[in-house]
């Protein structure tokens, strides 16, 4: 067997990670040039469209070094967006080294730093790659300075390359074999294989991706998932190129896939250890913390979509994305639906888009919320994922909200605007540091609920796109939080309620109803929008009834057009929900996201 190197590519989003992966695949002949398309490892339609990696992929590459030795390189791609950082950490657990890609025109950004820390935490060898050196705007010196000062890696270790043109990509592969150590591990020891990814294949069922740490795994063997204490038999194993290639064994140090007749994805728990049934390992590998949903929202069927369609689609989608959560939810105004939990806002958007595109559903989404921890007077602790579940205020002893540790990297000229934004979002400064003469690192403790309402876009907007953000869940903190209710024609609509800080409630209530007025079209009847705090009205807006919707004449040639107008009017209603007699469009449910 050829010597092995297991490595990942990590980077801030858009720094060229997938392009580098493409180039490496191409140069090692894993993918023939004629089959080459951009973002080869991004197989999801959405990944290609958005130009992002959502799901990590892996490929084994045959590489012949300059001195003529043959290697098996396992490249494990990672997602770049902060929502999917848990995937990065899983991928890293299967590697001995990582390429840290930095865009020469952007320099070090928040996720560069976060991912570098993550890799160092896993004791990986880091190879810095300054990418996009072909760009006119490339500032290699600045990037190298930042590498030294911010990340703390020596500039002498860095390779300068362009994944786009292929310049110096061979040097990168040479560095991989020279600097990254071969995997350790004892082929003779009892089997320990780390399950680091899994997905559902429509033809094969559950496929798991493993890194064999010790021992040898063979086709036909009886295996045990140590965490779950479930037994299976290996039907097939092999490696991915990214296409699957069947093998008979996977030995210590190797990365590959295993198919073992596992019926549901929940049985293939990421981080579990696979061992032999007849010669089990004594201690399982440390595994991972489970990815916890951070953002919740309601998904309700709209238009012709039935609740059964939504249920079936969620079940199917979950087979491929075990990181989102859902439970039935019932709302007076919206009927039956599901409360879903996501890793972040992008993840929420992606799940919704996949449900609509891949399953043809029409959905109504409610505003995102976070998980609140409520202690009742009776001493019970409740997890509240939707404001409407909040118990009667009289029964609440305290409400705690999730806080995040946010790290923001920005050029110093935007610091004023960013601090103002953070203060407005109830941020608590932990650190403000000039890490280079013109770059500032900010660390803030922020309530997550302030971040889900359009924080990221605001940050980008006040910094003209230059500030970058990374965050992780920190703790729960008690605070004076209140429920703000919205009434439409004096009827409370549960799904429009929000939990806000007491001091912000008035301004927020006013802004919310005003924003909603703009997103609800005039109707046949006058519509009253009210915001209420504990039953007391604090703001009101009125939408006057419309008085005409016919403009056009109807003469000889106008019938087709007329019928189209009527069809359009009907279609427009599809995404609306009727509460009482009021048609509420999707935008009104998300009006909260538009409040600055």
């Amino acid at each position, binding site marked *: 067997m050829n010597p092995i190197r297991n490595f990942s590519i990590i980077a801030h989003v858009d720094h060229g990670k997938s392009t580098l992966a493409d180039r490496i695949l191409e140069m090692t002949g894993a993918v023939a040039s004629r089959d080459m398309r951009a973002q080869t490892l991004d197989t999801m339609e959405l990944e290609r469209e958005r130009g992002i990696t959502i799901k990590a992929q892996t490929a084994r590459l045959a590489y012949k070094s300059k001195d003529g030795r043959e290697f098996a390189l396992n490249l494990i791609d990672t997602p770049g967006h902060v929502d999917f950082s848990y995937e990065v950490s899983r991928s890293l657990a299967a590697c001995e080294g990582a390429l840290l890609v930095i865009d020469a025109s952007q320099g070090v950004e928040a996720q560069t730093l976060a991912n570098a820390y993550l890799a160092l935490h896993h004791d990986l060898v880091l190879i810095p790659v300054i990418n996009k050196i072909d760009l006119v705007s490339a500032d290699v010196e600045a990037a190298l300075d930042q590498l030294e000062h911010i990340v703390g890696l020596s500039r002498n270790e860095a390779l300068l390359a362009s994944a786009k043109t292929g310049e110096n990509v061979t040097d990168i592969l040479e560095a991989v074999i020279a600097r990254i150590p071969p995997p350790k591990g004892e082929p003779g020891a009892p089997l320990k294989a780390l399950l680091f990814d899994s997905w559902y294949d429509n033809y094969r069922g559950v496929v798991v991706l493993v890194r064999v740490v010790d021992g040898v795994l063979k086709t036909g063997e009886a295996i045990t998932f140590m965490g779950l204490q479930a037994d299976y038999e290996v039907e097939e194993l092999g490696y991915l190129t990214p296409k699957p290639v069947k093998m008979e064994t996977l030995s210590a140090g190797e990365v590959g896939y295993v198919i073992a007749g596992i019926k549901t994805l929940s049985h293939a728990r990421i981080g579990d250890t696979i061992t032999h049934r007849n010669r089990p390992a004594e201690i399982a590998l440390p595994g991972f913390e489970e990815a916890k949903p951070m953002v919740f929202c309601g998904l309700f069927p709209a238009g012709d979509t039935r609740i059964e369609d939504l249920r079936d689609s969620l079940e199917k989608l979950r087979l491929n994305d075990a990181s989102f959560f859902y439970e039935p939810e019932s709302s007076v105004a919206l009927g039956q639906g599901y409360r879903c939990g996501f890793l972040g806002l992008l993840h929420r958007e992606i799940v919704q888009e996949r449900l609509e595109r891949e399953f043809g559903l029409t959905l109504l989404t409610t505003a995102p919320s976070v998980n609140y921890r409520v202690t009742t007077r009776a001493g019970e602790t409740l997890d509240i994922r939707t404001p409407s579940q909040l118990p009667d205020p009289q029964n609440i002893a305290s409400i705690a909200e999730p806080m995040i540790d946010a790290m923001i990297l920005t050029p110093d000229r935007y610091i004023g605007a960013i601090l103002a934004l953070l203060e407005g979002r109830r941020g608590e400064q932990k650190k403000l540091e000039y890490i280079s003469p013109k770059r500032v690192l900010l660390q803030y403790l922020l309530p997550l609920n302030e971040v889900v309402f359009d924080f990221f876009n605001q940050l980008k907007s006040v910094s003209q796109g230059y500030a970058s953000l990374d965050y992780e869940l920190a703790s729960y903190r008690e605070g004076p939080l209140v429920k703000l209710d919205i009434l439409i024609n004096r009827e409370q609509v549960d799904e429009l309620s929000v939990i806000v800080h007491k001091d912000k409630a008035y301004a927020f209530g006013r802004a919310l109803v005003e924003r909603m007025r703009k997103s609800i079209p005039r109707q046949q009847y006058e519509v009253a929008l009210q915001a209420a705090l504990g039953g007391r009205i604090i703001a009101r807006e009125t939408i006057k009834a419309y008085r005409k*919707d*016919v*403009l056009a004449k109807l003469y*000889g*040639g106008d019938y*087709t057009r007329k019928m189209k107008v*009527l069809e359009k009017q009907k279609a427009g209603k599809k995404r609306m929900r009727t509460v009482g007699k009021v048609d509420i469009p999707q935008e009104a449910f998300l009006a909260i996201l538009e409040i600055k």
Partner: protein
Amino acid sequence: MKSSKAGLYVHFPFCRRKCPYCHFYSIPVEPAVDRSRIGLWREGILAEAGRVASGPGFETGGSSLEFETLYIGGGTPSLAAPDDIARLRDDLADRLPLWPVEFTLEANPSDGANDDVFRGWIRAGVTRLSVGAQSFDDGVLRILGRSSTAARTEAFLRRARDAGVASLGVDLMAGIPGETPCSWDRTIEAVRTLRPDHVSLYFLENVEGLPFERTLRANPVDDDAAVDAFERAAGAFSSLGLRRYEISNFARPGRECLHNLKYWRYEPFLGLGPSAASHLGAKRWTNIADFGKWREGAAGSVPAAETVNLDPDTAAREALAAGLRLVEGIDLESFAGRFGFDPADRFRPEIAGLEDEGLIVLSGRVLRIPENKLLISNSILSRLLR
């Protein structure tokens, strides 16, 4: 064979100049020097009429269709000489079963007309003039880009009446930028003094791509103010004996436009000329809006901008949408006779819901939208025809 009474529309595709808000097909010409072009148009119309007459639906000895209304619209058909109109009508009657009980000619008052012209039109058989006044306020007319003045329009209407034109219709527009309660009063007052037999009152439509789009963007019109103006005018018309019979049309009883009623009653019509639409049997088509291409094809086949083969269900829905524009509504008995089902049965739950909200009335064998809800008939129809 039972004959059905159809309408005949003829499109005259020339104007002196294009009005910036108008989306009808026309070419700007100077008729004094462009008589030959009008001649070409006349030849084309006759060729097209001849071809249609020898086509399906017409070949049986006793024709299945009879045209009882003739409507020459445009464009500005009043640019054609009265003699041309007379000859056209005679020549059409040679080719088609045309016995019009109503013959409408659209006229632009800004072009003026002397008594001879009016008498010429009357001799040609014109029974009805549809006069594009739009407004009786000079400021508003200027904003619209009309070259006429209120005084000219008034004089035109007086002369027409004096010359003995049987029925006079006036087209007006609500929702014009710059309209004030005061300017609108002038328009209503003019109707009061001039006593036309018929008024069409439409809201100004913002059609994408027209020069007027910019005017409207710079001077947006308040919807509510436009509706207020419309309703005030409608009230005034009714006190003048002009009964509303369609969303936007008012007439002295007996002076409703029979030709336009055919569109709303979903009766057959034939349209000749570029951009003209026809609906015969289960087929509806619209001629190409291109004078040259239309003329080339007139004798053989005119390229269609749109051809629709109407399945019974679509036809029935269209008939409902059209018929409910009328104050009289739809006679369910005759509807069922034509389309094979009773809307009161087919749309029972929708009708019940709309009735509860006072948006539709089902009384006896008639289904109608109450007059005060006609302006929101689109939402009513989209709920009814779900």
